């Protein structure tokens, strides 16, 4: 299966590159930390309120961080025109996207898991009881952010003012992810937790829709 083996090879490359420099992970972690701290300064919640909008703020921080983290995604392929050599070498151009979006999802997840204890401390919200469901929501939400972000990063890399453009294209598009992830997280972290399976299903559908769109139209995003 050419697609799967190409994806695995390219994923290895993405992970190896990041592991060497760790620049994406460090900057993203620090950025989310800064945003969470700033939110605490801007709004001083009581114990009750922090459960209501803490998770929303966390997701907002994740979205902002992602829109910065996803910029180098295709830009770094421009330096030596490696995008052309990749396109020449792979059997299916979708492998390039698949590898990048899996890598981006992993980076986001690692960042979020590192941030969870900090979040729990700042907002006084115990996250351990519902951790498995919380991780599921984090995974599905981050996957959605990654899929849309990887696709749009391929677009913005070919335009001017790309640093400002990517957030502008991405954030309105991710409205459903923000709304649903935040709401589901709030009810998970409530004093009487409820698992909103409808919401989790919705996130999965969002991921599926955009993954399919990327699969259908990906090669045009890379075309010259």
């Amino acid at each position: 299966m050419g697609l799967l083996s190409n994806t695995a090879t390219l994923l290895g490359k993405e992970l190896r590159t990041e592991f060497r420099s760790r620049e994406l992970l460090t900057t993203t972690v620090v950025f989310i930390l800064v945003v969470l701290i700033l939110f605490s300064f801007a709004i001083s919640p009581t114990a009750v309120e922090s459960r209501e909008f803490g998770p929303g703020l966390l997701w907002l921080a994740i979205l902002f961080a992602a829109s910065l983290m996803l910029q180098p995604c295709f830009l770094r392929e421009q330096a030596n025109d490696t995008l052309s050599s990749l396109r020449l070498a792979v059997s299916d151009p979708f492998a390039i996207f698949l590898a990048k979006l899996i890598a981006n999802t992993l980076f986001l997840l690692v960042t979020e898991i590192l941030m969870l204890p900090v979040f729990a401390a700042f907002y006084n919200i115990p996250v351990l009881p519902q951790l498995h469901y919380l991780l599921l929501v984090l995974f599905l939400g981050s996957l959605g952010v990654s899929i849309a972000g990887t696709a749009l990063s391929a677009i913005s890399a070919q335009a001017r003012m790309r640093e400002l453009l990517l957030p502008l294209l991405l954030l309105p598009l991710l409205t459903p992810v923000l709304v649903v992830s935040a709401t589901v997280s709030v009810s998970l972290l409530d004093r009487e937790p409820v698992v909103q399976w409808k919401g989790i299903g919705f996130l999965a559908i969002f991921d599926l829709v955009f993954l399919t769109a990327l699969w259908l139209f990906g090669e045009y995003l890379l075309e010259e």
Partner: protein
Amino acid sequence: MTSLTLPPTGLRLENIDKRYGGLFALRRVSLEISPGECVVLAGRNGSGKTTLLRIAARIVRPTAGKLSFPGASTETDRNGRPGYVAHTTMVYDELTAEENLVLFARLQNVQQPVARAEELLHEVGLYERRASAVRTFSRGMRQRIAIARALIHRPSVLLFDEPATGLDPLGISWLAKSLGDVHRAGCTVVMSLHGESEISALATRAVQLDAGSVVADTNSGASLHSILTFGGA
């Protein structure tokens, strides 16, 4: 360059057009290159040489026309995929020479990718630096890793865009020898060049482009010389 056990493959362009928003970079270009030929593409800057090579490399999609590789066993056959070398290395600066070559070997389903990568590193003379990041390479070394990358899957067609740019005389000699070896092993070579050199001496045919159209196509030595010396001004 050894071990080319592939079917000799040619290159055929039929009525290729490439438009960039109304401006024609290539206009009704038809070219038939037989397996095993060594062809020089000459012409001024902006005549369409780079565009033609990028279309042949399947990196750029033509606006109209057909591209085929007569002799390649199937359309998706690895050996039907040309090797392409351009102005940039098209490898990753932050990975080592060896990692880069293994990556491209794996992507193209080359058997025993690590062994093949080492073989090529020896042939281009980079084996000593195989564990260094490409970022640290000199211009000459960068050219060599680019060639290694292009040859990793044993292509039967090699496309070369201004290979001698930035190389010192020693580098040019080495390149001429390497291209000669590749050609003698059965590879079809198409390269764009400015002016005459050891490299252009390998060519048996010259095609001149001007403003996106073929204006001259010759096998004769005298015409070759004049195309290369005047056409490339």
